[in-house]
């Protein structure tokens, strides 16, 4: 374990059209260090221009997702230094939120603090049945960050979301499913395999409309007319795509379509 203990990185493996990114900083329970952030953004940027990759899975090494920020690095700083520190994390949030490929999070163990924020930037989340979620920031005198005030209320109703944010409630997997924090629960140890299965479904779906859908929904919260403008313009472009032709042919021929992304 000594070699694993020392690393602080994000590993990328490829499973067909699915890229798997594994946060690997096991010694600190995959705490979200600056190196991890930089590697994550690097991989996401590579994937964005990689036409062979159509879906992304994010997970953590060593049986846990991420315990959040690294408390050992939070010595005294001024408010402006603190602001700079948060700004450095902004690129991770924006890259995940504005990217065009679907992201699936596979959560085993803990998704605490920034680890929770990271999971919630995914489009679809599966939790192992013993996984735990917590906006633990408040326990050390901080508030949520990495987009948490944007992502959490999109999924969880206000009463529960406020309890999570203001009292640092720990939420177990079954409750997470019930309140809409995650989309699925898998037996312990099988979050990744469940995520991969779902990621393949995202990879098989027509990629062009989903790029536009993901972009549109990232404008949350948007008004009716913004969304109507978005759908008519997007649909206009899509109507003449080769994939729409393929989709229609498959529909009339009663077979599964094969989308090329053009």
């Amino acid at each position, binding site marked *: 374990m000594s070699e694993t203990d020392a690393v602080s990185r994000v590993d990328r493996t490829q499973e067909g059209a699915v890229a798997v990114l594994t946060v690997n900083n096991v010694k600190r329970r995959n705490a979200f260090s600056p190196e991890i952030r930089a590697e994550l953004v690097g991989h996401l940027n590579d994937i964005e221009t990689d036409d062979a990759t159509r879906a992304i899975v994010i997970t953590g090494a060593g049986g846990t997702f991420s315990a959040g920020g690294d*408390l050992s690095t*939070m*010595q*005294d*700083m*001024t*408010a*402006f*230094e*603190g*602001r*700079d*520190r*948060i*700004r450095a994390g*902004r690129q991770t*949030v*924006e890259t995940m*939120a504005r990217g065009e490929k679907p992201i699936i999070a596979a959560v085993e163990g803990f998704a605490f603090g920034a680890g929770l924020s990271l999971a919630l930037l995914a489009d679809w989340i599966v939790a192992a049945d013993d996984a735990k979620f917590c906006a633990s*920031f*408040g*326990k*050390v*005198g*901080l*508030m*949520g*960050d*990495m*987009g*948490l*005030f*944007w992502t959490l*209320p999109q999924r969880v*109703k*206000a*009463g*529960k*979301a*406020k*309890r999570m*944010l*203001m*009292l*640092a409630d720990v939420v177990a997997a079954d409750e997470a499913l019930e309140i809409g924090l995650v989309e699925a629960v898998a037996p312990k140890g099988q979050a990744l395999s469940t995520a991969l299965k779902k990621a393949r479904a995202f990879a098989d779906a027509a990629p062009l409309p989903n790029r536009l859908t993901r972009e549109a929904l*990232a*404008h*949350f*919260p948007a008004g009716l007319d913004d969304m109507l403008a978005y759908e008519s313009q997007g649909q206009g472009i899509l109507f003449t795509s080769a994939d729409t032709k393929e989709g229609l042919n498959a529909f009339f021929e009663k077979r599964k379509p094969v989308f090329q992304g053009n």
Partner: protein
Amino acid sequence: MSDYNPGATLEKDGAIAILTMDDAKKRNALSEAVVSDMERHVADIMADDAIRAVVLTGANGTFCAGGDISGFDDMDMPLRRRMPRLQGLAAKIAHSEKPVVSAIEGGAFGGGLSVALLADQVISADNARFCASFAKIGLMPDVGLLATLTARVGIGRAKEICMLAEDVPAADALADGMVDELTAPGQALTRAKEVATEFAAMAPLAVGYTKAMTMRWPMTLVQELAWEGQLQGILFSTDDLQEGRSAFFEKRKPAFKGR
């Protein structure tokens, strides 16, 4: 009822303030006496650094019957001038940066429901009833209810509750997310004080900034990132963060000072 004395009372119990609407003849309706007392007490609570959480409740076995409609027909002051006063009170409660817990016995109706849902957590007796009764008297919900209710129960249920103005029993209110917890009848205040004590143990600046962020919902990602950078930046510079870190490493409970 010889000592009929409508208004609102304030009790301070350590770090907790308990604000109680009390108008025995009008089921704690938001009459002039109740509202003006609440204005005064809310200002007091806000100025008091020793207070870290607020419980909002009603006397006489009920929460609040809402606006005082007995005076509607002969009201001189136009609504355009009267309503901002109630909204101002609501805004002070909502934006106070001190966590607020509502304790509901009996029921919360109309503007009383609006006041209840201004809280961050809502604790209700399991036999209480709720009603956005505005449409029953030809009005629309006010004092922020459309925002607070929609954020809690979602738009589908919120429309039904507001348009039909039908009673919602406590069990449904819990299932919908309108309230957060149910207690046995008579126990809402006790439980609300416990929840307020939980809030009071959190770092006051962090919980206050967190509350401020939730009160700006819904927000775009651009807004979120700007605000979280500024507010979290300030929290990074506080003594409470260093206390929180020390407590974590020493495996003890932190003692936050709010600076």
